[in-house]
């Protein structure tokens, strides 16, 4: 058993047995290869269920706005801890309610990419150091983890938890050299019509299941704008104009709030490139307001505040 997994169980057990928390949110074995499932653990004995591997892709902070007045421990990667900070900043949870079990991690494996690279169904997976061993009916293949990380993990600059009460595993060196907006910059070079065509193609895959919204820790609104009936902003069908507005506003509402954990994209059954939208928002937030989400709990979200000196080069000011 990997050391990290053993430590998670041990710490979770301690917290529960000593009644430091009401429950622990972590991961358990999934029913499919390359999958795990979030789990809520209430009893010390059940902590044996907890696991840790390169498929723990969900951002468990998504469950926190619903915990009421409970005290909860949560297993969190770097991005997840930034979501927790963002939720604290927005007053959705209280710091003292949460015990963060922070885990520095190199990134999660993009299961879909692996699935696409083998012929036939994957039946067995083993993780060994830097490699993933995949077995199917008629094939066996080894993948280098680093080459198959989720795109959000590949460009992540905050792989260490920004807050943690219990840190499990060694802190890892942050990559300062990666260009996290490389894809956005590339995209910006395209012509306006090319950009629209791609955007349109992507959003037209949407089936309005709202998995992206539901998987996002920051989409905690009591009633989402698409569900408003009065005014009813957009139609509920598959009209491409409505789909476009849904995805524009969903991304826009993430301004200064998205930690780029990639949960929305992983949840999407239609495999829409959702990060290419939020990533642009993140880029502009950085550009205009020099802000990155979830790094500290003292700074207000950028769209809830202002600076008199903010750039206004896009406004006709008469000067």
């Amino acid at each position: 058993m990997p050391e990290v997994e053993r430590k998670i169980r041990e710490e979770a057990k301690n917290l529960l047995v000593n009644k430091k928390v009401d429950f622990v949110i972590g991961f358990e074995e999934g029913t499919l290869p390359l999958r795990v499932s979030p789990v809520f653990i209430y009893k010390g004995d059940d902590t044996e269920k907890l696991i840790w591997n390169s498929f723990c892709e969900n951002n468990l902070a998504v469950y926190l706005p619903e915990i009421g007045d409970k005290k909860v421990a949560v297993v969190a990667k770097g991005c997840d801890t930034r979501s927790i900070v963002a939720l604290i900043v927005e007053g959705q949870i209280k710091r003292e309610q949460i015990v963060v079990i922070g885990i520095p991690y190199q990134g999660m494996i993009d299961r879909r990419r692996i699935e696409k690279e083998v012929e036939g169904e994957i039946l067995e997976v083993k993780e060994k150091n830097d490699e993933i061993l995949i077995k199917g009916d008629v094939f066996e293949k080894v993948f280098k983890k680093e080459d198959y990380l989720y795109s959000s993990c590949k460009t992540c600059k905050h792989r260490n938890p920004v807050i943690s009460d219990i840190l499990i595993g060694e802190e890892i060196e942050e990559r300062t050299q990666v260009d996290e907006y490389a894809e956005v910059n590339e995209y910006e070079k395209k012509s306006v019509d090319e950009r629209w065509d791609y955007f349109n193609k992507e959003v037209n895959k949407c089936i309005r299941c709202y998995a992206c919204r539901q998987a996002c820790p920051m989409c905690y609104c009591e009633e989402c704008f698409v569900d408003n009936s009065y005014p009813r902003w957009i139609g509920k069908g598959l009209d491409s104009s409505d789909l476009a507005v849904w995805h524009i506003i969903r991304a826009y509402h993430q301004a200064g709030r998205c930690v780029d954990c990639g949960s929305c994209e992983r949840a999407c059954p239609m495999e829409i490139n959702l990060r290419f939208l939020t990533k642009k928002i993140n880029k502009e937030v950085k550009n205009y307001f020099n802000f990155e989400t979830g790094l500290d709990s003292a700074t207000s979200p950028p769209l809830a505040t202002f600076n008199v000196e903010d750039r206004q080069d896009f406004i006709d000011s008469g000067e």
Partner: protein
Amino acid sequence: MREREPKILAFLCNWCSYAGADLAGVSRIQYPPNVRVIRVPCSSRVNPLFILKALQQGIDGVLVAGCHPGDCHYISGNYIARRKFAIIKNFLEYIGIEEDRVQFAWVSAAEGARFAQVIKEVTEKVKRLGPIKKLVKTRGI
């Protein structure tokens, strides 16, 4: 064939830009008649959804105008609005909506002539783009 005149929607803040429009009117300054005005209490009242909803319905261009920085009737409304607009404007361009479909301006109550000038420029820019095709909802609203 005659060019179709563009339809432009202007959200004007009640305290400055709307008064500026009024001044342009009472001063009898001529400006293109393409603009339909919606008066809002403050430029920060303009939710980006309003802009998208207008484009969805076939409006060729949207202008949002408010008080100059420092002049907001509500002290800081236009500063907040400015942040929202920075994001949405860049984002709409990014996904392929032409830059000039959505424009922003500061116009004070004293700037009747400037209001006319802004409208003239906005109209020209939108005219150059031609009728809106992207984002328009063709059935229902």
